[in-house]
């Protein structure tokens, strides 16, 4: 089984889907000849040509709008927003049109678009290149938000997103792009959207997280295991709609739950996860539900010290996990 990086898994999934279905096409800024600023679409322009890998103007609302229109007419567009921070001009298109069309048309229309966007900090990207935007979309029924944590999940979930009959936001952590490597099968496999995944079995504390947070939690768990603390780690994978069943099961497993996100704390995905747990697991809880998240300040600062303060990292996760275990 080949080992590939997180971003290679993105490219691989795109390539396979484009090969499989000629309705699949890519549009976005610099995705064509340049192969994307992160090289996610590297080689696809040469392989599939300019008609299927389309460079667009710097107009996110157009990228989304064009993609939505094409999707409603039966195409399978994969739109790339160069940085998730830039998605804001497209929010109206995504929420008002893509998310609503099936409901609004009473199932006459649907919109099978996938919108990919790199998100997340810790790369000295500062304000406009570091943000997490999932919470903006996470109360819009009609949308699905997928945020994978491993190369294996990236391939399986991106393929699932492309094949999904409804709009999917696919957020990739940009720091994970070349940081995380893993085995990815060559064959055509699809992972279910809306299903969380237990990344580690444990009995003392439960950590629920997604994206890069999973990686940090796994690192911390390994260290803590030497101290005799056994951590159960649930990777949400899809942050909207949430896999309630898996969340409840994971929370009930240990009764001590730590929720980790690098997004701003208040109103984050984890606020909803916490609400689900408190609604369903009161009599299993052995400790207050804890959240480790970014501070409630507008965006990731540029100064390295400040960025470090803002970002979650393995040390912070480890400390929070130990603290909960000792409670």
């Amino acid at each position, binding site marked *: 089984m080949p080992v590939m990086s997180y971003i290679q898994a993105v490219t691989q999934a795109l390539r396979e889907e484009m090969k499989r279905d000629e309705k699949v096409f890519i549009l976005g800024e610099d995705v064509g000849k340049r192969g994307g600023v992160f090289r996610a679409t590297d080689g696809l322009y040469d392989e599939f040509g300019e008609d299927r890998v389309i460079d667009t103007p710097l107009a996110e609302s157009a990228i989304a709008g064009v993609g939505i229109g094409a999707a409603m007419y039966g195409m399978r567009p994969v739109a790339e927003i160069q940085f998730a921070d830039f998605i804001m001009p497209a929010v109206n298109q995504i929420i008002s049109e893509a998310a609503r069309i099936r409901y609004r048309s009473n199932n006459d229309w649907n919109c099978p678009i996938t919108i990919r966007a790199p998100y997340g900090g810790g790369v000295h990207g500062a304000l406009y290149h570091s943000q997490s935007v999932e919470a903006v979309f996470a109360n819009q029924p009609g949308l699905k938000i997928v945020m994978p944590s491993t190369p294996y999940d990236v391939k399986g979930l991106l393929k699932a997103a492309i094949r999904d009959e409804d709009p999917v936001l696919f957020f990739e952590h940009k720091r994970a792009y070349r940081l995380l490597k893993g085995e990815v099968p060559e064959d055509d496999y699809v992972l279910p959207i809306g299903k969380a995944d237990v990344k580690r079995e444990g009995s003392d504390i439960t950590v629920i997280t997604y994206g890069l947070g999973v990686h940090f939690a796994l690192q911390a768990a390994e260290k803590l295991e030497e101290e005799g603390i056994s951590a159960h780690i649930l990777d949400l994978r899809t942050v909207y709609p949430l896999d309630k069943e898996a969340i409840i099961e994971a929370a009930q497993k240990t009764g001590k739950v730590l929720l980790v996100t690098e997004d701003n704390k208040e109103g984050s995905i984890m606020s909803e996860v916490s609400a689900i747990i408190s609604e369903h697991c009161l*009599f299993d809880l*052995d400790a207050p539900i804890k959240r480790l998240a970014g501070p409630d300040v507008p965006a990731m600062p540029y100064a390295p010290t400040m960025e470090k303060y803002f970002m979650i990292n393995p040390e912070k996760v480890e400390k929070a996990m130990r603290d909960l275990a000792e409670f």
Partner: protein
Amino acid sequence: MAVEKINMPQLGESVTEGTISTWLVKEGDQVNKYDPIAEVMTDKVNAEVPSSFTGVIKEIVAQEGETISVGELMCYIETEGAGEGEVDAEEKGKEEGSAETKEDTKKETSEDQPMKKRYSPAVLRLAQEHDIDLNQVEGTGRGGRITRKDLEKIIESGNIPKSGDARAEKTAAHAQKQPEPQAAPEQAQPAAPQAPSYPGDVEIPVTGVRKAIAQNMVRSKQEIPHAWMMVEVDVTNLVEYRDSIKNEFKQKEGFSLTYFAFFVKAVAQALKEYPQLNSTWAGDKIIQRKDINLSIAVAKGEELFVPVIKNADEKSIKGIAKEINELAQKVRTGKLTQDDMQGGTFTVNNTGSFGSVQSMGVINHPQAAILQVESIVKRPVIKDGMFAARDMVNLCLSLDHRILDGLICGHFLARVKEILENMSKENTSVY
């Protein structure tokens, strides 16, 4: 220099509070570690509290006569060198098992300590589902908090501490131990109506032994349906026998040979033949005790203690007399230990020593009966068709009518009477 706390130690497993009877030190006194600093009276026993540290008594917080809970602050002591105090405290904790909890309390900051009784929903649910007595669970969480995992481990091990268990075990294993103080007070409450006091009245706080007596009596009378019987015994021969050897005995053994020892012996012997009276009511069953441990009541001033002569059936009259003497001595000097008062299965009460000729004793809960030995008095009785001056004594028996009926008790009393009336120089040896 560091200021340490000395808290009320745990002076017995079910003791929850103690009354400071006397401070043996005053503020400013230099004390060594283990020096007694105060006398404390609890429901069960009077004890001296040793100092946990070497240092100078800084402030006495609990005053004489004050009743404070176990673990509550008694006084502050100023020690030399902060670190050393800590080490000492640790050592002491190891040496004295009972003091350990106290030391822990001190070591852990007070903000951590309350976690012991902070239960999470999960812990409460598990405790309820599996009937776990959380008081008996050792918490491994922060500040001694009991974690869900602690309970899961207990459940898995199958060794579940149940509240019911603890009580049954207590009654079964140490039948004669005092009733649990936690159960008694609620029952004692209704019996103590608010009485007004008038100028010149003296209000005496009910503490320590008095409180324990009150609780035990209320409990006994509330739980046990008492019935009474009395027999008259002619102990002329016994009196004659005892009078003839008492001086010699005293000289030889160094303590007096009392009549009471003969009565205790006779009762022990009869109990062996009628074990029904040597038992305890345990709800759905009656537990007949194998050992014959006789509680005897010993008064001291305003207080009444009930020490136990263990395995009285195995002892000679001299042995019993000696033990009565020793126990009475201990009561008088306040040296009676909790152990001395445990395990009684039947009570023999020497009411005759107060001149009483008839009384209705309250059963020493949870025993089945109590026998009151009244005064021996010379009375004219008809013997062989003639008046004769005989030494007569009444034996009054109170019985738990749930366990016992008149028939069996009548047999028992008749047997005691028979044994006593046959005690004489010719056929009884005190050795």
